[in-house]
């Protein structure tokens, strides 16, 4: 009887909190819209990161293999050093307050650029290790058939390297999903900020913040699970 009562009252409290924090005044919209912003920034930042990362990786491994592209390689190394050597939070603030200050550029765009440029540095090293993991004989076989350097890279090396690094790229998506939670610092209403806004309105910290955490966790755990299945598939289809 006692337990039932206790259960009953905590359940009542949960329902009460739920209604107060999320239903009243449509506060759930802060989380829903915030989630949209978070996913948008993450997705486009990952795509930008892959693009930058691929170019940087090709420049770096071309330099390592042939000794050519000295100046582009130098620029790439400087980029990697700066991005990997400073906190992403500082990079985001610099992007917003120093570099992309033009009023014509949206905050979401600034965040995509900042996180994309940041991610590119990590993706570049993922790709580079992927390219370097391909046997040198593959490259020589391509060239000996008459393929140019670029053709050999795109037709023979990159498809194999990409397959090797897909799991690591998926992981980068997960990392970035969590990293974008600092977007509130440039006044972007992402998922984290959404929860924080609710907290400031209801003066209830626990319910909205735990809800935010659970939403992140569902996405990260779900993606990790998909990634595991995907990796297993890759391995069984290993040619």
């Amino acid at each position, binding site marked *: 009887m006692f337990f039932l009562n206790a259960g009953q009252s905590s359940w009542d409290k949960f329902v009460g909190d739920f209604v107060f924090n999320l239903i009243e005044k449509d506060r759930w919209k802060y989380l829903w819209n915030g989630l949209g912003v978070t996913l948008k920034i993450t997705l486009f930042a990952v795509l930008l990161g892959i693009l930058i990362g691929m170019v940087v990786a090709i420049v770096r491994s071309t330099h390592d293999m042939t000794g050519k592209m000295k100046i582009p390689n130098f620029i790439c190394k400087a980029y990697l050093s700066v991005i990997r050597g400073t906190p992403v939070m500082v990079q985001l603030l610099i992007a917003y307050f120093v570099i992309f200050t033009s009023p014509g550029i949206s905050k979401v765009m600034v965040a995509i650029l900042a996180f994309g440029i940041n991610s590119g540095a990590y993706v570049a090293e993922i790709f580079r290790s992927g390219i370097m993991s391909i*046997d040198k*004989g*593959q490259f*020589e*076989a*391509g*060239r*000996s*058939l*008459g*393929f*140019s350097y670029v*053709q050999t890279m795109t*037709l*023979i090396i990159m*498809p*194999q390297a990409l*397959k090797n690094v897909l799991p690591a790229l998926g992981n980068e998506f997960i990392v970035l999903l969590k990293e974008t939670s600092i977007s509130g610092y440039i006044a972007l209403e992402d998922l984290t900020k959404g929860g924080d806004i609710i907290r400031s309105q209801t003066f209830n910290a626990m319910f909205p913040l735990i809800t935010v955490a659970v939403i992140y966790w569902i996405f990260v755990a779900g993606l990790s699970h998909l990634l595991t299945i995907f990796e297993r598939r890759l391995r069984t289809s*290993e*040619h």
Partner: protein
Amino acid sequence: MSTNGIGTELIEVVDLKKDFGKLSVLKGINTTIKKGEVVVVVGPSGSGKSTFLRCLNLLETPTGGKVIFEGVDLADKKTNIDLHRQKMGMVFQHFNLFPHMTILKNMTIAPMKLQNKSAAEAEKLAMEMLSRVGLADRANAYPSQLSGGQKQRVAIVRALCMQPDVLLFDEPTSALDPEMVGEVLEVMQDLAKEGLTMVVVTHEMGFAKEVGTRGIFMDGGHIVEENNPKEFFENPQHPRLKEFLSKVL
């Protein structure tokens, strides 16, 4: 044997030199390879055989000298090497098939991308080639599903699909289990009979003697002796070739 089919000059190697840093690997190689020849290159390990072969299609950039192929100096920086490589196939010790493509795709990708052949044309040629080496039924398999000997036979016909004027072999049977060496040498012998020009680095002395039209002995970055196979194997002149043959035969 195709000795009587030997024709005009195909590759002229003039004072070819290759250094790796301070290490001088090729110290001035001079030789001429004619159409229809099967040149077998033998010599101790580390004597520069692979480097010599790889300089012929510029997989290694020569430090000095000329490699004149069909009248064009490949070592000249202004030469578009990609174009000329289409006419020089190469077969590697470790096959180097593309693992992410089927056997058929391995064989059609270069003709389609480089010679603008249609898929149908390229596939027809590839299937003919595969039938020749008894692997038509493996066209849709992936390289990992093949034995070593099968992989090397595919590697040979992949190179042939570009219809090259010369085929370069770098120890094509050295990575194979002994029972698979024969099937690969057989294919090479057939090609020789048809008059394909080949340069073969090999340790298979039986093959060299029987199929080769000329033997080259390399030692210490030089061509030490060069002769027709009969003289080369039965009446070697240079003491180092005598010593080498006494060890390997």
